[in-house]
């Protein structure tokens, strides 16, 4: 990790408050809407908090990585190849910014749940939910970087929007996977988004196989990290 480059990227991220606000506000608004509409005993606000905080973490980490398609198109990665900054140093800084961007939506949904929807958890439960979701955002930051390397500035939004919708819906982040038809429920259990939400559901007192969730997200991280590394090595940074 190159500290100078990381600081540069963090300053760029802070310079775009509209993006950060957008990443924060949509999951919070969706949580408030859903807990108002569906907040019943079986799918209570605590459950919805897990699902929509997972959505916020997924989306922020993913979008940050995917947006690298734009600077790749502008030739910035090519310019950086002419400096001692390594490919790993660039990717690590971008991944770190994706992870930092993922924290506000998680905290925002948790705060809305506690303050506005009366969700009560022990201190350890809050910590496990927030930190677990945050750590679980790693494969999504990597998925974003992969999309950013494969897409062009012109088509990246199509990839981004498509993957976001499919992974969020089919992973049960908007509608609980328990209410899916059997075939779709099986699909959900193969998706990283499903297991990310399960981490939070477990922390909020649900009956969840947390070990499986960690294993699945870890495997996704390894595979995606390898794919990003291979793709980046083959690329000459040409837009």
């Amino acid at each position: 990790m190159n500290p100078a480059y990381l600081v540069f990227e963090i300053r760029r991220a802070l310079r775009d408050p509209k993006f950060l606000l957008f990443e924060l506000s949509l999951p919070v608004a969706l949580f408030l809407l859903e807990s108002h509409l569906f907040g019943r005993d079986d799918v209570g606000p605590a459950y919805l908090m897990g699902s929509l905080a997972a959505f916020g973490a997924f989306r922020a980490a993913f979008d940050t990585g995917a947006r690298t398609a734009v600077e790749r198109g502008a030739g910035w990665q090519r310019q950086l190849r002419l400096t001692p900054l390594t490919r790993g140093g660039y990717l690590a800084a971008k991944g770190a910014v994706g992870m930092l961007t993922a924290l506000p939506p998680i905290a925002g949904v948790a705060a809305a749940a506690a303050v506005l929807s009366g969700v009560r958890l022990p201190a350890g439960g809050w910590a496990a939910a927030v930190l677990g979701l945050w750590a679980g955002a790693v494969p999504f930051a990597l998925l974003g970087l992969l999309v950013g390397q494969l897409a062009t500035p012109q088509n990246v939004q199509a990839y981004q929007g498509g993957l976001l919708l499919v992974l969020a819906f089919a992973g049960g982040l908007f509608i609980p996977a328990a209410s899916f038809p059997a075939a779709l429920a099986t699909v959900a259990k193969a998706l990283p988004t499903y297991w990310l939400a399960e981490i939070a559901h477990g922390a909020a007192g649900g009956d969840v196989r947390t070990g499986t969730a960690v294993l699945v997200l870890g495997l996704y991280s390894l595979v995606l990290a390898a794919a990003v590394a291979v793709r980046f090595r083959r690329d000459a940074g040409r837009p």
Partner: protein
Amino acid sequence: MTTRHTADPEDATGPEWAVAARGLRKRYGGVRAVDGVDLLIPRGEVVALLGPNGAGKSTLVEMLTGLVRPDEGDIEIFGADPGAAVRSGSVGVMLQEAGLLDDVTVGEVLRLIASLHRAPLPAVEAMRRAGIESLAGRRSARLSGGQRQRVRFAAALVPDPDLLVLDEPTAAMDVDGRREFWAAMRSLCEAGRTVLFATHYLEEAEAYADRVVLMNAGRVAADGPVAEVARGGLDEAFVRLTSGEATR
């Protein structure tokens, strides 16, 4: 003026050769972008790389700067691997299609690049040498094409390199911009720097280069001191090679 470039490429090795490339080939799909190029540049020489679009100039430059690995052949830059030479700061590079970020200022981006290099010029000094001090506070989105080129030139100067590799440095510049650019270059070259620049402008090659390497279809069509190559009909050769794109 030197004629050492006529030495046998096999014997040319070590740090006194800014560039020692032998038998370079690179193919993209069915296209032989570079098809057997030897290039030797001793320290201190200013070399112009001329040729029409698609002649293989940019691919050659990408290989010399370590961005693209040749399919065949090998390259030494001051006796080192090209990528290592770029990372060590002994080569400053200005590439086509390399770009800037729209959301940061010229000063910020050059300070970042300086902070990444091991023994850089201060960003302010690089801006002064490239003649762009007045642009330091400007965001890249608000630069003209010629100004962007000058910023990328400043970025190439940041490592205080011994070799400058410039791919069409004056593209997108108007006549005044080109004149100012070459005035800045001339004072830099007085310090004994080695320069390899690709260009479409024949008059730039004649005015500023010690030597011309004329490329066509991935091969070196002519190589020698400007006067010598010109005597063999550089004008005519170049016009023939570039016919249809004389407006560039």
